């Protein structure tokens, strides 16, 4: 007998359930969680290093690093005296909520104010997986070319914050900043766009202020 079973279920519902558990845990702790997504080499870890240097004495931070291989990124973060745990995906192109749950436990990540989750370098696959974060941050470095937002619309439409990184290289590369801003604003009219350089420090104040304001908002205090 042929039966048609109507389901109406998200294909990734089991990931979403775990993400909801994570979100509840982080809410209980009052931890602001960010999911950083970009292609490899756009400066996620370097932005984190610069952020941690600036916020270090003021805000308790921890980092979960997602990579296919090597402990390198977690070591870079720990060198700054910040708790970090390396999640090795062993080939998988993205983090999922289960890996983040396991990483928090295995890394004995303490209760902190801000948890940075650095996803595996990839502009596509991480987009589909909710990690329980408060918001996604997409990075695009100026060396990657000014056509990327429309080429990878899913992540630019979803990320609340877009960071255009390596601003110090702008004089040396053909990169139409206005066109990129327009593409991002088209996909996400309410999003925030920041121009940063972890080398020169440009835009770091705006980025850190955004983190402070979002943390205050999460804790119900006026920003």
């Amino acid at each position, binding site marked *: *007998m*042929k*039966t*048609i*079973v*109507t*389901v*109406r*279920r*998200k*294909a*990734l*519902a*089991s*990931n979403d359930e775990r993400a909801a558990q994570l979100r509840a845990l982080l809410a209980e702790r009052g931890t602001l969680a960010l999911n950083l997504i970009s292609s490899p080499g756009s400066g996620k870890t370097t932005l984190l290093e610069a952020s941690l240097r600036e916020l270090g004495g003021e805000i308790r931070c921890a980092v979960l690093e997602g990579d296919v291989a090597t402990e390198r990124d977690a070591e870079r973060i720990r060198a700054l005296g910040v708790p970090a745990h390396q999640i090795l995906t062993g080939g*998988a*192109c*993205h983090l*999922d909520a289960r890996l983040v749950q396991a990483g928090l436990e295995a890394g004995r990540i303490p209760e902190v104010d801000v948890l940075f989750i650095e996803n595996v370098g990839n502009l*596509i*696959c991480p*987009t*589909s997986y909710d990690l329980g974060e408060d918001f996604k941050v997409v990075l695009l470095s100026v060396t990657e070319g000014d056509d990327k937002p*429309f080429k990878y*619309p*899913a*992540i630019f*439409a*979803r990320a609340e914050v877009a960071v255009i990184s390596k601003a110090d290289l702008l004089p040396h590369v053909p990169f139409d900043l206005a066109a990129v801003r*327009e*593409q991002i*604003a*088209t*996909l*996400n*009219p309410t999003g925030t766009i920041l121009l940063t350089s972890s080398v020169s420090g440009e835009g770091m104040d705006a980025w850190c202020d955004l983190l402070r304001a979002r943390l205050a908002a999460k804790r119900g205090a006026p920003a």
Partner: protein
Amino acid sequence: MHEMGIAIEIYRASREAVSGHGPGRVERVRLAVGELAAVEPDLLSFAWEAVVAGGPDAQSRLEVEWRPARQLCSACGEVAERASGSWLRLCPQCELPLVVEGGDELDILEIVYEAEEAR
């Protein structure tokens, strides 16, 4: 490429959904995939074949319904017409910014299940 993991998840969820219908085989699963889901339908169908191969549902098919994202004008409310994959900066009528809606679907819609005849 994360389509393999997603195909495995869809298969697991589909089998779970028909678990109350007795022994039988899955004929097809209908799935909605949005333009902004970051999933490639052809790769997903290919992955599906690999996931079900050698099992009771080896003949099953994954049918993908493509759901474009819509661009709405905050003033006139009209859905701006656009070519797939291209985006409009402003409403052609009002010349105001548009809002992107939908297109993030990755939803199992229905499963066609052939239950074995009861003896």
